[in-house]
């Protein structure tokens, strides 16, 4: 069985995010990056299948040189092989173009299963996974809370509103976009890290994958106009006094606004 896991490298959750002066994106210089948290759960799900049965786990990511770090980490955790699309012409791509690149890798690899995170911590689009599935003509499930293989089928639990779960059955090959917190993500052991550097990491360009016309700023159907931090609004009312006074004041305010 072959499993493809799509990873994105995103700014570290503790990184301070400053917006570029032209408002196009955040300043990426001198901040740390890590694997998108959703994708770590996706990778862990794939590695658990590999723990159970014969499987090759291939990780794929798109990004500049620093992205090899994320892929090496994934290899250190137990993935077998990595594909890195490192190509400046990809910059400015929208979610569909990213999906087309990943789908091109999917067509080459012909995986039985594709895992992605539900969304990326930075962009919050939550659309690449389903788009990749459509491009590969695979069934897919989003907000996946659990996944178990049963022969040629995959049974997945999906998270619904209000804490309910939906159980779906998908025919392989299929794609799963994974929710966070669904498993305990493993750490790369020291020996795993040292073994990772001997594992194959292929660097590809958009042209290699035949998608050069479909990616980058020129092809983007969604263009980011501006990123900004909304100004702080005025009008907050501070309740002062003893704890009892504040509590009573708060209750009175809630009633006054008809919120109860």
């Amino acid at each position, binding site marked *: 069985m072959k499993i493809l896991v799509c990873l994105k490298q995103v700014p570290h959750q503790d990184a301070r995010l400053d917006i570029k002066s032209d408002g196009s994106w955040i300043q990426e210089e001198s901040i740390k990056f890590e694997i998108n948290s959703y994708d770590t759960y996706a990778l862990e799900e794939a590695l658990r299948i590999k723990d159970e049965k014969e499987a090759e786990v291939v990780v794929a990511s798109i990004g500049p040189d620093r992205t*090899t*770090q994320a892929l*090496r*980490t994934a290899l*250190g955790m137990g993935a077998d092989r990595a594909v890195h699309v490192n190509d400046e012409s990809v910059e400015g791509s929208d979610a569909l173009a990213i999906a087309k690149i990943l789908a091109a890798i999917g067509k080459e690899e012909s995986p039985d299963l594709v895992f992605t995170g539900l969304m990326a911590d930075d962009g919050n689009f939550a659309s690449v996974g389903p788009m990749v599935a459509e491009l590969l003509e695979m069934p897919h499930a989003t907000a996946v809370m659990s996944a178990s293989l049963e022969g040629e089928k995959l049974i997945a639990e999906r998270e619904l509103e209000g804490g309910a779960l939906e159980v779906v059955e998908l025919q392989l090959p299929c794609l799963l976009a994974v929710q966070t917190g669904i498993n305990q993500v493993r750490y790369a*052991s*020291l020996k795993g*890290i*040292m073994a990772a550097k001997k594992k194959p990491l292929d660097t590809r360009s958009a042209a290699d994958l035949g998608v050069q016309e479909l990616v980058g700023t020129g092809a983007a159907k969604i263009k980011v106009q501006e990123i900004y931090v909304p100004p702080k609004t005025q009008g907050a009312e501070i309740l002062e006094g003893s704890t009892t006074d504040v509590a009573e004041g708060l209750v009175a305010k809630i009633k006054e606004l008809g919120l109860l």
Partner: protein
Amino acid sequence: MDFKYDDDLQNIENEASRLAGQFDDDYWREHDEKHEFPWEFYNAFAEQGWIGVIVPEEYGGSGLGISHAAVLLNAVAHSAGVQNAASTLHLSIFGMGPVIHHGSEELKQRTLPATASGALHVSFGVTEDDAGTDTSRIRTFARRDGDHWVINGKKIWNTKAQQAQKILLLARTTPREECAKPLQGMTLFLADLDPNHCEIRPIDKCGRNAVNSNEVFIQDLPVSDDDVIGEVDKGFYYLLDGLNPERIVIASECCGIGRQAIDKAVHYAREREVFDRPIGMNQAIAHPLADAYSELEAADLLWQKAAWAYDTGEPCGPLANMAKLRASEASFKACDRAVQTFGGMGYAKECNVERYWRESRMSRIAPISNEMVLNFVSEHVLGLPRSY
């Protein structure tokens, strides 16, 4: 010149940070207050093979260099556990250095796999209160008794003795006055820390209280020839090999602690508002933090260069010593500024920076005082006459 970590070092930093990051300030404050050894933290690192970073591969370790160990402990110290966290791992990683480099094949096979896996805890037994930095004056003595040795004496500052099964023990085997040189005549033993012959008394100390420091009183402790490291009477010289790596790694830990303190202080300075603006807008708050941060950056370069020199076989003594000096001073300054940035709350345990500050004080004294480092630099780097 290339100042960038290679993929291995970067991955070590990332993964060690990620794992250490699971243990937060509450965990460490509680363990520090209760003087409890952080087993969960230790086991988490042992399970992933980190303890065996410098143990050769044929004995179950990863056989990596001091650079890798230093990056690991720098990342660990740059977490909520600061020195407590670093020391928890440090002793297990480095304590067995003399066995790795000078032990018999039989001793290595018997002890290094358990060292690499983290199962074997060894306390370091060199320092004595009557001898201090003048190690030639130690009084612990191993006398020959039939086919084995019997050791009597007292050691101080034995880290982790309460968890250790063994003690790396330096004892006189020939009286000082009978040796051609004062530092001859001492032998290094890997002895069992046998409770029937060793009494362990914890030292109540300023900080780093999750990892105990002890006095060990040794009475008629039997040790076999198999547990002698290298040759009899040459033990001190085996310890010398470990001094430079130890200073390099301590320096890396200091820088990690300092950065942890600066992270906390900067976050606070951005968030805390007094007189309707964040206190970080005040240069009296900002400049000392920027200054302390710059000193940490400089100290980082020193230990990294020293580690590179050691791993490539270049002379590293001056660099290792100066790295330890600069890093320990920079770390203490950073922690002190963090406490100052927090104002009154800096003195409160719940804000944690006072714990960092207490722990950062240690490396200005240990494993060697900064005054002795200055003596080394004066004499061996600048060529000035020896002062003692």
